[in-house]
């Protein structure tokens, strides 16, 4: 258990900054006579979040499910692709450019096609979240798996270790910090991917995610509801990010050090 003295320097500065900014924001809106269609006050945002709490929670759950499915898939698939890259120079040389292609493809351009191929609904949302969050995993895991101390590889070969033993006992453990970095980047991107996906596919007539709430608030120029929905989505991204950090710092770091 960490002591208060250890935690305080980490927690206090961002909290203090947060309070200062919120206070300044409230004062600027209040005394700067800024109309609500330009910028809502933090109080108005809090009020909108409270009155819309049922819709926000429902939407958050649905978006979270889509983002997490996409994120989990990109972790698994991305790591497998990276392993394939680390096994064979030829596979890596021939496939890596296409992985880069994945990163640069404008998702808003292909989202309508994804809907045509995979139909409207949850699966398309998760797929878009997957596509958008896959590349950081591939590139970071590949770097981690291939940047292994040459002497250690020689040592493993000296002891007649096969490539699977090298993979599980040397390459994968040493790739853990890289993989965690990739997952951190991907965690936020998966949430963005899910919301973009919702713009294009939706979930039918009755259910909706944060993407729909954002469009609805934009259409009605209700900036307070818009900010509430945006804060909910950033909270979701931060939650995934935090879980990645915790898993990286506990479970995986033990493997790394072992």
């Amino acid at each position, binding site marked *: 258990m960490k002591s208060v003295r250890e935690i305080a320097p980490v927690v206090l500065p*961002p909290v203090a*900054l947060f309070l200062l900014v919120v206070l300044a924001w409230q004062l600027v809106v209040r005394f700067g006579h800024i109309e*609500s*269609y330009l910028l809502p006050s933090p109080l108005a945002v809090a009020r909108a979040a409270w009155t819309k709490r049922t819709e926000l929670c429902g939407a958050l759950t649905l978006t979270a499910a889509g983002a997490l499915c996409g994120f989990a898939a990109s972790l698994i698939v991305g790591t497998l692709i990276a392993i394939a890259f680390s096994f064979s120079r030829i596979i890596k040389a021939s496939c890596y450019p296409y992985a880069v292609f994945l990163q640069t493809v404008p998702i808003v351009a292909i989202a309508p096609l994804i809907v045509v191929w995979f139909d409207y609904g949850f699966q398309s949302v998760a797929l878009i979240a997957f596509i958008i969050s896959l590349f950081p995993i591939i590139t970071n895991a590949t770097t981690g798996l291939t940047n292994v101390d040459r002497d250690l590889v020689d040592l493993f070969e000296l002891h007649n270790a096969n490539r699977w033993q090298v993979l599980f006992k040397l390459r994968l453990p040493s790739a853990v910090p890289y993989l965690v970095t990739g997952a951190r980047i991907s965690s936020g991107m998966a949430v963005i991917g899910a919301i973009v996906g919702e713009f294009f596919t939706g979930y039918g007539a009755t259910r909706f995610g944060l993407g729909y709430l954002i469009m*609805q608030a*934009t*259409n*009605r120029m209700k900036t307070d509801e818009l900010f509430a929905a945006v804060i909910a989505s950033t909270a979701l991204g931060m939650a995934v990010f935090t879980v990645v950090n915790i898993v990286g710092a506990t479970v995986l770091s033990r493997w790394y050090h072992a």
Partner: protein
Amino acid sequence: MYRLPWFAWFAAAAWILLTGCGRVPTEGNSATADDAKSDTNTLTKVSLMLNWYPEAEHGGYYAALVHGYFEEAGLDVKIIPGGPNAPVVQQAARGAVDFGVTNADRIVLARAQDAKIKALLAPLANSPRCLLVHADSGIEKFEQLQNVTMMLSREHAWAQFLIKKLPLDGVKIVPNSASLAPFLADPRAAKQGYIISEPFVAKKAGADVRSLLVADFGFNPYTSVLMTSDQTIEQRPQLVRKVIDASRRGWEKYLADPTETNRRIHELNPEMGLEILDFGVRAMKEHCIEPDAATDSFGRMTSERWHLLVSQLEELAMLDPGAVDAAALYLAE
């Protein structure tokens, strides 16, 4: 890592403060100068922002430009094309543009959020908003929309109206896409459109379609409405008068003889061919323009229509009851 978003908020707030607050007074100051200038035979610079790419629904404004009606009124009008989610209402309300074109429901929703704008002229008295269905679907009216996939932007007021008023048995609602392909591929699909363009595109693609006008079903906001801020109306009444009159002349010209104007629109927006623009004008005359409108009453709005729209938006829970005064929504002539 946690701080970044808050810096971003702060930067956004500062940006809006600087641009939002700094702009309005400057425009206001130059306003009096502009009005004076027009007397000494120099043209007054005026900006007019559209809610979409240049199309037939904006024809009258372009006609006033092409045929020199704005210039005759002493105005040098710059028409700024819009697009998806173009912030016309916001820009007009804060004075970043002098005039804007939008639909009546957006004006109501904007006013509910303290964006002080008013409608000035409503060239399209009836909304061109429609749902396309395949002709062989047997669907001839909205009540028959059952077991279909409806492709529509459900956050919009007219879509909310349909969702509230229709039984929707077996109806799947999916977001609208710019492409017609998903609609063409599904014989049980219904897709949103404007009666002045989508039926033409569908026919060109070989589909036999039927259009159901949302206006006929009871939701009929004025469309392609000319609007400006309360501030402009108060501070530059003569300018407002001139822009209304020249726009009205433009619309009358456009509906009578759109050839030259359509050529200009086609130049500005090559995606709009001359053929579809021509179709658009004919469809607009048939469905959207009041046939008996006398010359000086063209585009004039009624209190009943604005009251009805407000009560409909209240009923759809898009507007808090009493949040908007219908009389403040438009400039009575």
